[in-house]
Each structure stands twice: as structure tokens, then as C-alpha cells.
């Protein structure tokens, strides 16, 4: 019970209906000090889930608690303990970083100026620059520096590596791993699954508004295999298939590990699992 109370974030039965999309009964809880990857294709509902978590949108039903406390009664104290970074830091892009920092720091009693300087130096950021002058990767790093300087224990990152080159993505993944070592909890939404392979402890897989998986990364990957097939697929493989993709030489087929032996299947990457399951969902 005590560990449940201390969960940095717990979501229970979150639902939100839009005319063209419905988020259905999403439930999960984050383990402290872990990196949780939140995956799903564009439009699966990742950002809607995050917006609902942060009260930007009002869910139709569900309960969300941060550090065991509901948002409505503890909004200020929760906000002091979390940091939110979305795709590119697009806030006040023509103001100097030092001006944004000066305004931001005033709101946080626990602001740590030394930590801020440390992160600015470590990330190679110059306070005289504006966000408009920064690359997308540097914008994310600045947003992280702000969040970490006010002592955020939970970092919610919405597609932080989208649009970044592979080197910048690698740098950010290293940052996330360092933050994990410092005991921070990271909730990382992305559709670039290769980044998560390098750093995530746990995976939440959202598909068409429903949470399809909530498992440790290794267990999630272990549960699936990829069979490769040139030409026509044998009937047994068709029956076992949980998703099929065309390739230059034929097909790749996602099968459950327990059904894989007959097909000389190999281990599947996170991306392959997601893509094949999405293709199957599209087909059905």
C-alpha cells in the first residue's frame, strides 16, 4: 500500500471521447526511478493521455494521482514536483533564455540556482540565446534544465526526440539515463521506439485509444518473434500471424513466442512489434 501511495503517477480508468477518437479506460502506474516508454502510432492517444494527466483536457472519467495525491486538491505542490517537456520547447521563442529563467524561477520555492548553472553548462546552453536560436534538441535540454532546477522528481516528456537527428537523439537518451541514475522518474512518450530500446525499463503500448500492453521492456520484446517469409505464406504461419508487413523479399510476420518454433523466427525489435500490431489493427 505504501509503495502505491508513493507512485509518482497513477492513472485509473482514464476515458475521453472526441467526435473522431476515443481514449478508453487507460490505467497504469509508474514505478519510481524508472524510465517508462509510452508508445503508439501518431493519433493513438498518447498526447491526449498526457493532456488529461496534466489537466489540459478534462477526462470524461478516470482518476489521476501524482505521488498519491489527486491533481484538483494538490495542483500547486504536484506542479512543483513534475516537469513537462513537449516536442520542441516552443514557449516564448523570442525571449532570451535568461529572461524566461528569471520569470520561471520566481514560482519555485525549491529553485536550485547551482543546479540550473550545472545543467546549463552540461547541456552547452547560453542564457543570452533565445529558444528560436536553438536546435530542437537544445530546446528540449533547456526545458529539462528548467524542470530539473526546480527539483522535478517526475519528468513527463511528450515526443521529446521527434524531429531530432540520430546524434541529438542519442545525446538525449544519455541524458535520460543520467536522470534515471539520479533517481528521477521519466515518462517518455514517443513513436521512435529505437530510443526506448536503449533506455526504457517498462513499456506502455497504446493502440487506437486502448492500452494494449503494460510490461517490462524485456518481457514485452520476449513475448514476440518475427518470421521472415519469401513468397507465399504457409497456412500455419497465416494462422499464427499477429501482424504482417511486406518487405522487398516477401513478408515479415509477427508471431507469439510460443507459436514461433516452427517458423525459424528471430527476436523482434520494439519497432517491429509496434508496426506489425498496428498493421494488424488496421487490417481488422
Amino acid at each position, binding site marked *: 500500500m505504501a509503495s502505491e501511495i508513493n507512485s509518482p503517477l497513477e492513472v485509473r480508468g482514464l476515458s475521453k471521447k472526441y467526435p473522431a477518437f476515443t481514449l478508453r479506460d487507460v490505467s497504469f502506474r509508474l514505478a519510481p526511478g524508472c524510465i517508462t516508454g509510452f508508445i503508439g502510432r501518431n493519433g493513438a492517444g498518447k498526447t491526449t493521455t498526457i*493532456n488529461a494527466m496534466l489537466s*489540459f483536457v478534462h477526462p470524461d472519467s478516470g482518476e489521476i494521482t501524482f505521488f498519491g495525491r489527486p491533481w484538483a486538491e494538490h495542483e500547486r505542490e504536484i506542479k512543483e514536483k513534475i516537469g513537462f517537456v513537449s516536442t520542441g520547447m516552443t514557449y516564448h521563442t523570442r525571449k532570451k533564455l535568461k529572461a524566461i529563467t528569471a*520569470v520561471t524561477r*520566481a*514560482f519555485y520555492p525549491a529553485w536550485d540556482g547551482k543546479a540550473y548553472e550545472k545543467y546549463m553548462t552540461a547541456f552547452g546552453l547560453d542564457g543570452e540565446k533565445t529558444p528560436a536560436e536553438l536546435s530542437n534538441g537544445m530546446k528540449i535540454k533547456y526545458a529539462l534544465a528548467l524542470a530539473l532546477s526546480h527539483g522535478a522528481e517526475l519528468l513527463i516528456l511528450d515526443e521529446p526526440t521527434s524531429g531530432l537527428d540520430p546524434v541529438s537523439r542519442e545525446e538525449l537518451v544519455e541524458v535520460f539515463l543520467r536522470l534515471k541514475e539520479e533517481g528521477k522518474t521519466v515518462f517518455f512518450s514517443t513513436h521512435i521506439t529505437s530510443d526506448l530500446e536503449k533506455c526504457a525499463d517498462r513499456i506502455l503500448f497504446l493502440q487506437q485509444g486502448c492500452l494494449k500492453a503494460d510490461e517490462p521492456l524485456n518481457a514485452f520484446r520476449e513475448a514476440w518473434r518475427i518470421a521472415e517469409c519469401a513468397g507465399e505464406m504457409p497456412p500455419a504461419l497465416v494462422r499464427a500471424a499477429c501482424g504482417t508487413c511486406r518487405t522487398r523479399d516477401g513478408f515479415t510476420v509477427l508471431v507469439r513466442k510460443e507459436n514461433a518454433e516452427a517458423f525459424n523466427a528471430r527476436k523482434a525489435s520494439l519497432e517491429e512489434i509496434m508496426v506489425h500490431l498496428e498493421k494488424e489493427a488496421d487490417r481488422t
Partner: protein
Amino acid sequence: MKLLMKEWKLCMHPTGYLMPLMAGLVLVPGYPYGVCCFYVGLSIFFICLTAREDHDAGYTLMLPVSRQDAVRARILFCAGLETADLLLMGVFILIKNVIGSLPNPAGLDAGVALIGEGMILFAIFNLVFFPVYYQEISKPGKAFAFAATAMFLWIVLEIVGTYTVPFFRDILDQPDPMYMSDKLLFTLGGLALFLAGTARSIQLSAKKFEAADLSL
């Protein structure tokens, strides 16, 4: 206070500094002086437009403040600009009275009553603009269209009133210091409307903003 500072440091649009100076238009003979207040409304629209482009709502709502705090700060900050406009208007009216003033055929003369008229105009603007804006912060233009229309309707009524309504024509539109007690009473009434209208605007806007789903 911190949020007011945020409004000033991060959200202030250059027109927020310039438009209150348009109070100097009271020095122009034969001009509908209520329009000076419209310019400040325009600068408030620009502040909200820039806030949208800068994703200010996303930034502000991740600070440890509530939606209600954010609404209150924005409206009070804008009310500060409106007050600056009215104070400058007072200064320019004094200057105009020193250098000599001709009757204004386009509405109220530049006198004490004009400040009361400005307060009524700002009360109308605040009551219309902010609740519509906070219903959908991605569309400040819609809110401004409604608020500007309401302001211009009142300005037209005021101009017509200076020809047809005895209280406007025979008392408020007479040169200062004639009927000063009536004009002061009118201006105090304007102040009461400005304060009450702004307070009500904060209430309505906060309620609308609380209920809104934001796409950030």
C-alpha cells in the same frame, strides 16, 4: 504578483506600451475620443494573439499556479494598461484645457466626464472580450471582434447622446469646470462600473477557462 511580472516580462506586446499613448488624441480637435480606448483594446488583442503564438498557456499552466490565477493575472495586467491609458488621458485633458479647448462635435468634450466614459468603455471591453477569449484561447480575433463591436456601439450611442440626451448634451458635454459635481459623479459611476465589470469578467473568464479543453 509573480504572474503579473510574467505577463510584463514575457507577454507584453510593444503596442501595450504605445497604445496608451494614443490618449494624446484628445489633443486633436473634432475627434471621437472614445476611440482612444479602442486602441488599448487593440493592444490587449495583440497581447493575447502573441500569447497564443508563444504557447503561453502551455508555459503558464505548467507553473505552480491554477487556471484561475492565470486568468486573473492576465485581466488585471490588461486593466493596468487601461488605467494607464485613462491616467494619460487625464494628463492630456489638463494640457488641452491649459492651451485652450474648442467644443468637440464628435462626442464628449475632452473633460472629466470623458474619463468616466473611458471607464465605461473598458468595463464593456473587459466584460465581452475576456469571457469570449477564455472560452477558446486559440481564437482571440473572435473575442476582439465582439468586444470592438460592443465598444463602437457604445461610442456611437455616446456621440448621438451628446446631441439628443439632455444629461449628455447639457451637462457632460459642457466645458470644465461647468457642472463639475455631476461630471465627477458620472466619472465615479464609471469607476464603479469599471471595477465591477473587471471583477465580473475575471469570474466569468475563469469559469470558461476552467471548463475549456486545451490543445497545447
